[in-house]
Structure formats: structure tokens, C-alpha cells
């Protein structure tokens, strides 16, 4: 199995009334993921989706349970994993290409090789002419594509995407989803994608995990039967609408439980 998450829980210490109390954000999460598949994790905000991503990336450590990639424990960030962040999080003082090169620079890759690899990835996300621009000169959709390129340039075996299209307008979002779908089809890497957009999750994934409100648990594990490559007309099909309704009813049930 490529990615194994076994009984993972995470607690945060929070300051409250002069003392400390613990808050459980993730509760006993377990799932397995095959190589090359696209998994989406969907859930209400604050359910610990982003925390789970940081645990898989190795940015934080879980308090209980274990996370393994190809049988090896995750102990910290590794070039095997590439993360695409919410709100792009590009470095404003670096040009587009310098942002893309960042990961390679940290690995000590030579300047020449960095440049060639960054340029080829920028071409992949259709940003060839913008390598010398600063992030603030780009639109939201382009900034997010730079964020994607920054992760892809490392040729990560596992691509982690934390609500990458959350802040974009509806049209740009759909266009980027289609572009991402084609890219993943081509690169065949494993993706874990966090979102709160049901349609996005359905369109992109082979499998969707639905998480309940905090402390986040997996409520439902749904296989998505649609064939690839996916057409933009898929969104209008009956099967799509049915699955959308199914996921929504799960989300709805658990949200009302908690209110």
C-alpha cells in the first residue's frame, strides 16, 4: 500500500481561562491509499482536514497512531511529498521562477538544473511567459498555478493539496480543476486533495472521504466510478448529481448533529 494512515489522532493545547486545556482536532483516522489514485477529503471547516494534511506532509506530528508512506514512517517533510497551500502562499520577494525553484534550492540542486526543471514545470501549468514576474503581478488563478508548479517541480510521489482553489472565483476554479485533472492524468502521481467543495471533489477524485465536524472522523468512504479522462460535461450528468446529493446528505446529517 502506498499511503497508510492508522488510528491517527491529534490534540492541540489551547489557552483558556488562564489555564491550558486540550482540544482534539482529529479522532482516530485510518485509511489506505493505492499508488496513483486521487483521493479527496471533504468536510466542514474546522474539522481538521488541514491538520491531517500537515500530519501527512510531516510538518506536525500526530499524538496517536502512525502514518506510513511505502511502509516508512513519516517523521518530517521530505522531497517525496509536495504540498500546495491554501491561498498560494508564494514568497512575494521571489519571482515566479524563483518561487518554483525554492524546493530544489533547499535540496542543493545546481542552478542550471533548477532553472531547466522550473521552466519545464512552468510550461506544464501554462505560465511560460511569466517566469520573471513577481507573484503580486499575477491574478489569483495564476498564483495558484505557480503554487502547484512549486510542488510539481520536485516530482513528488505524493502531491498534497490543501484547499488550493478555495479562494478563487467560480470560473477560474472550474478551469483550474480541468487543468489539474489533465495534469494528474499525465503525471500519474498520487494526490490527496482537501476541499469543502463537493463538486470539486467528485470531478477530480477516484475516491472521496467525508469527514465529520471536530474532532474530525471519517464518516463515509465513497468510490467515484467515473472514467478518466473526465469531460467537463460530467458535471451535468445524472450519476454526478446523485453522488453529489449522497455526499451532501452525509455532511448535512453530521453538521446538524453537532449544532
Amino acid at each position, binding site marked *: 500500500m502506498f499511503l497508510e494512515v492508522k488510528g491517527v489522532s491529534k490534540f492541540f493545547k489551547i489557552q483558556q481561562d488562564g489555564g491550558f486545556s486540550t482540544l482534539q482536532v482529529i479522532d482516530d483516522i485510518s485509511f489506505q491509499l493505492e499508488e496513483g489514485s486521487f483521493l479527496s477529503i471533504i468536510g466542514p471547516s474546522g474539522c481538521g482536514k488541514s491538520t491531517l494534511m500537515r500530519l501527512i506532509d510531516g510538518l506536525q506530528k500526530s499524538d496517536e497512531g502512525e502514518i506510513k508512506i511505502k511502509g516508512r514512517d513519516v517523521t518530517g517533510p521530505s522531497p517525496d511529498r509536495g504540498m500546495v497551500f491554501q491561498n498560494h*502562499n508564494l514568497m512575494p520577494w521571489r519571482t515566479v521562477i524563483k518561487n518554483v525553484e525554492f524546493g530544489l534550492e533547499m535540496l542543493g540542486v545546481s542552478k542550471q538544473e533548477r532553472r531547466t526543471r522550473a521552466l519545464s514545470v512552468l510550461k506544464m501549468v*501554462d505560465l511560460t511567459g511569466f517566469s520573471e514576474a*513577481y507573484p503580486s503581478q499575477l491574478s489569483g488563478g495564476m498564483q495558484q498555478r505557480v503554487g502547484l508548479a512549486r510542488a510539481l517541480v520536485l516530482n513528488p510521489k505524493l502531491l498534497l493539496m490543501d484547499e488550493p482553489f478555495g479562494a478563487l472565483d467560480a470560473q477560474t476554479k472550474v478551469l483550474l480543476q480541468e487543468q489539474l485533472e489533465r495534469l494528474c492524468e499525465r503525471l500519474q502521481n498520487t494526490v490527496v486533495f482537501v476541499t469543502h467543495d463537493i463538486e470539486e471533489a467528485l470531478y477530480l477524485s477516484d475516491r472521496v472521504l467525508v469527514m465529520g465536524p471536530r474532532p474530525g472522523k471519517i464518516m463515509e468512504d465513497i468510490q467515484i466510478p467515473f472514467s478518466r479522462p473526465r469531460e467537463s460535461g460530467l458535471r451535468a450528468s445524472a450519476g454526478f448529481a446523485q453522488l453529489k446529493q449522497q455526499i451532501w446528505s452525509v455532511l448535512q446529517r453530521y453538521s446538524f448533529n453537532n449544532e
Partner: protein
Amino acid sequence: MPNLSSKYGLSCSGTVLIMSSTEQFSRSLPIIHSGEWRSRFLLNKWIQRAVVWGSLIILYELSALGAGEFFLPRVSQILVGSIELVQEGWASTLVGSLNQMLLGFSLAIAVGIPVGLVMGMWRVVDYVVGMYVNALFVMSLVALLPLLIIVFGVDIEFRISVVFLFSVFFIILSTADGVREVDPRLLWVATSFNAGSIKCFTTVVIPSSLPFIIAGLRLGLANAFSGMILAELWVVRDTGELLLQLGHNRDLPKFFALILTVTLIASLTAALLKALERRLTPWSRLG
């Protein structure tokens, strides 16, 4: 299933075209389309400056004529005065003053930036040191001059210490503010891409706080000039001594010439720092 994407013209390259054309120019600056030379002429900053400065000089000349040269020297007299100052060899005096000022200011940079960085990064340091820095920052440092004379005497050490104290707090506080403003999400990003703590510092903390550091340097430099003149007035040396002498002798043309020269040098160095800022932080002027 029919190929819907080609039906709607959303082929791969088609998408690219749509996105580039709508996104490419969304952040570019508005272009002034009125090609009239008159508006361009009026908008030129050097022409605006020439008009303002010219009027001020004329206004000054008129008031100097009205007040008489016992109170205000005329522009032509100030020019003559500055030539006389150079002929009498006072230029080297000014250079000497500036050298000592630069020594004090360099010391302030060498201390201020590291202290500011450390203060911004570790809250503990801020708790311990921040109190004193803030107290000295708001306190009138002039009140400390008698104490400094007792400690350092009246020689170069005193003047350097005054310049140092006048500028160091601006540098410390601005640098610390810059470090506190670092976006923690960017530190996550750097860590995620395998940057250790030293790399996080050099690739995120330093560039992110650079605009603040340079702003601190500019404020500090302006105050270093005040410190320089003040210290020299206290111990009656170099430029300060000359100013006192000229004032006592009521040699107003030279007095004005000297003050204008010091102002000019201070403005030029400030402009130099501004240029340095533009060179080092080209991104900060965008978006």
C-alpha cells in the same frame, strides 16, 4: 459519449488562451492616455519641483530684502558665504564630522539589526530587552548628554556614543517589527520544502523584514545627523564649533551656507538609502 470539451471549444490550448487573455493584464497599472504635452509637462516632477523651489527662493529673497541683512542674508550672499567656507578650508571640518557620524551610525547598524532580529524572533528577549529599548526610545536622549560626558569625556567616544544612541533605537524597533510581521504561513511553506531553521531564517525572515530594516535605517540616519550636530555643539568641536562661532560673530551668510550644506548631505544620504531600498526590495513597490 460525445466529446463535450471539443464541442464547447474548451480544448487544452483553448483554455490556456482564455485564461491568459483575461488574467494577463488584470494587475497592470492604468495608462494615462491623454498624450497632450501640456499635461505631461505639468506632471513632470522636476518641473513641479523647480516651480515650488523657485517660488520659495524668490519668496525668501523678498523677505531677506525686507528684513535687511542683519537678520536674513540674501541668496547671493549665502552662495558667496559657501565659497568662502570652502576657501577657508572648512570642508575638511565637515568631512571630519561626517566621518565620526558614520562611525557611530555603523555601530548602530551593527548592534541594531542583530538586536532587532533577536527581539523579533524570541518573545523572551523582547520581554527582557524590549522594555529598556522602548523606554530609551521615548525618552529625551538629550537629558543623558551630561552623563555621557562624564562617562566618555569630550572626545570622539562621546560624539560616537551620541550618534549611536540617537539612531540605534529606530533600527532595533523597526527591525523587530519587521520580524514580527513575517507571515507564519511562509515559514510553514519553507519547512514543507525541506528548509531547516537556518534556511528559514535566510530565505523567509530576512527578505520579509528587509523593507522594515531599511525604513529603520532611514529614520536612524536622519537622527544620526541631529545627534552629530548636537554632540558637537555640546563639546564645541568641528562643525558644531563652527556653527557657534558663526552665530556669535553674526556671520549669517556662512551660517546659512553651512546649515544648507549639512541639510543637503543628509537629504542625499537619505535618497541613497531610498535607492538602496528600491534596488533590494523591488517587489515591495508592486501590487
